[in-house]
């Protein structure tokens, strides 16, 4: 089944700001302003060309309105839909549809957070589920910890295999100048780290940082004349089966099986054609679950798959080439940063961590507690 959306739009600008710890008093919108300026410079277009605005944040309920006001934009297409960390990959789909339908010409997808500077706790705007909050689980780590525990029970996955995910992420971060963590990390270091919610230690958990990101998207026809190498959006899919972990039909298979299938079907590719993977590693178990659910290995074999450097620099499958949420940055909702790193790789602008001639990048984002899943396939001019 072909889709008129395949390759119809392309990423023309990317920008990041405030990664790590922002200056005192900076608001998420201040960082978003800086990220938008960086994306505008990267694309070589003025923000006055933006007529479609897509945003989700934890700090602002009406994110697209706040961002539009701050940036001086009056959009004719506005989207504040929120799927947690998966929002921004979902926004790629919405923006592609809006551009293809002629409802806007230039889309800005934008995010920002100052959660580290605000006190270091994960900020979430979500009303609690009283049937879970009553038991005081640590949100969200305890939910992912239960998924890890179930995976270990069903498939014999070991803590050493979870640790291998963290070690690989750190090795990629060491190659990435802007990454938050550059100190070496071994499997033994991870195993000896402070336990937060069994079986996850602090080293199995994503960072808590500030940060903002912005991505500009337009029709591929327009993008061909712009300054950056073409990064077409070939396919996007989304899915969710639950919001709260106690309602998840399974703690070992996620809706990524649906979102990945939909994205790859739209793109007309199979998983074997993927050159580089950027997936939402909020916790080490995520990488194992998503590599299984996206089809890189069979269900239950993710633990063995991530061992022995397979997903680390020099391994057979490059995963999270900037260090991911575990070692690059994690300002609350990481999804937009996945798109940016994939674009860098496809443009051949990834410095020391550049993979040789990648043409297909798979971007997979997760929202809330293994709840929302959104997958995108990005390509190059050669894939059109």
């Amino acid at each position, binding site marked *: 089944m072909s889709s008129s959306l395949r390759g119809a739009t392309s990423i023309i600008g990317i920008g990041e700001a405030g990664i790590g710890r922002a200056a005192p008093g900076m608001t998420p919108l201040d960082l978003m302003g800086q990220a938008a300026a960086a994306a505008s410079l990267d694309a070589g277009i003025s923000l006055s060309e933006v007529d479609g605005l897509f945003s989700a944040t934890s700090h602002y309920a009406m994110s697209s309105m706040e961002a539009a006001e701050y940036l001086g934009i009056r959009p004719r297409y506005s989207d504040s839909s929120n799927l947690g960390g998966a929002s921004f990959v979902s926004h790629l789909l919405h923006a592609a549809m809006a551009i293809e339908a002629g409802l806007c010409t230039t889309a800005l997808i934008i995010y920002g957070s100052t959660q580290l500077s605000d006190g270091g706790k994960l900020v979430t705007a979500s009303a609690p589920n009283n*049937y879970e909050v009553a*038991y005081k689980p640590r949100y969200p780590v305890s939910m992912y910890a239960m998924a890890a*525990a*179930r995976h270990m*029970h069903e498939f014999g996955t070991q803590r050493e295999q979870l640790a291998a995910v963290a070690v690989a992420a750190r090795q990629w971060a060491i190659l990435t100048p802007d990454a938050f963590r550059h100190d070496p990390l071994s499997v033994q270091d991870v195993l000896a780290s402070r336990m937060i919610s*069994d*079986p*996850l230690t602090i080293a199995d958990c994503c960072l808590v940082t500030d940060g903002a990101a912005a991505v500009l998207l337009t029709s591929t026809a327009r993008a061909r004349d712009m300054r950056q190498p073409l990064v077409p959006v070939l396919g996007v899919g989304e899915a969710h089966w639950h919001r709260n972990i106690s309602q998840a039909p399974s703690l070992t298979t996620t809706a990524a099986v649906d979102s990945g299938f939909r994205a790859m079907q739209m793109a007309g590719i199979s998983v074997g054609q993927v050159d580089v993977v950027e997936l939402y590693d909020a916790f080490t178990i995520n990488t194992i679950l998503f590599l299984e659910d996206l089809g890189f290995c069979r269900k239950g074999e993710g633990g063995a798959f991530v061992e022995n450097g397979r997903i680390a620099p020099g391994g057979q499958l490059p995963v999270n080439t900037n260090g991911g949420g575990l070692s690059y940055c994690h300002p609350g909702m990481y999804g937009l940063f996945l798109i940016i790193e994939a674009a860098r790789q496809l443009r051949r602008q990834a410095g020391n961590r550049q993979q040789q001639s990648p043409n297909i990048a798979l971007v997979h984002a997760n929202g809330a507690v293994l709840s929302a899943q959104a997958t995108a396939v990005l390509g190059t001019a050669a894939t059109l």
Partner: protein
Amino acid sequence: MTLESEIKSPSEIYLSGISAGHVTYQHCDRCAHSIFYPRTICPNCGATELSWLVSAGRGVVYASTVIRKRDAPYSVALIDLDEGFRMMARLAPVTQMLIGARVRAEVDKASMQVTFVEDVVEA
């Protein structure tokens, strides 16, 4: 045993059951699905004809974790009740409960929490 109540909201009915020492859940009168958490519509078939039932409080540990707070650790788990629904609850004792273990509910009316303990099956 069915509970009858004049209280209207699903959460109030559930909490009144907890106050009486019971774990309650809903049964869909149309498709026989067991429903938890309580709500106004069956998530399986969309029916609104729902009845309230009292669970026997017996089930199996589906997943668990130990939260390592500074003062005292505690276990949070997802329990699959024999009646066909899943709920989050506490586990006691803290470190010994394994996934797959048979457990039974103890309701603490003061804290309004349900804790599951090992269900020793008599021979």
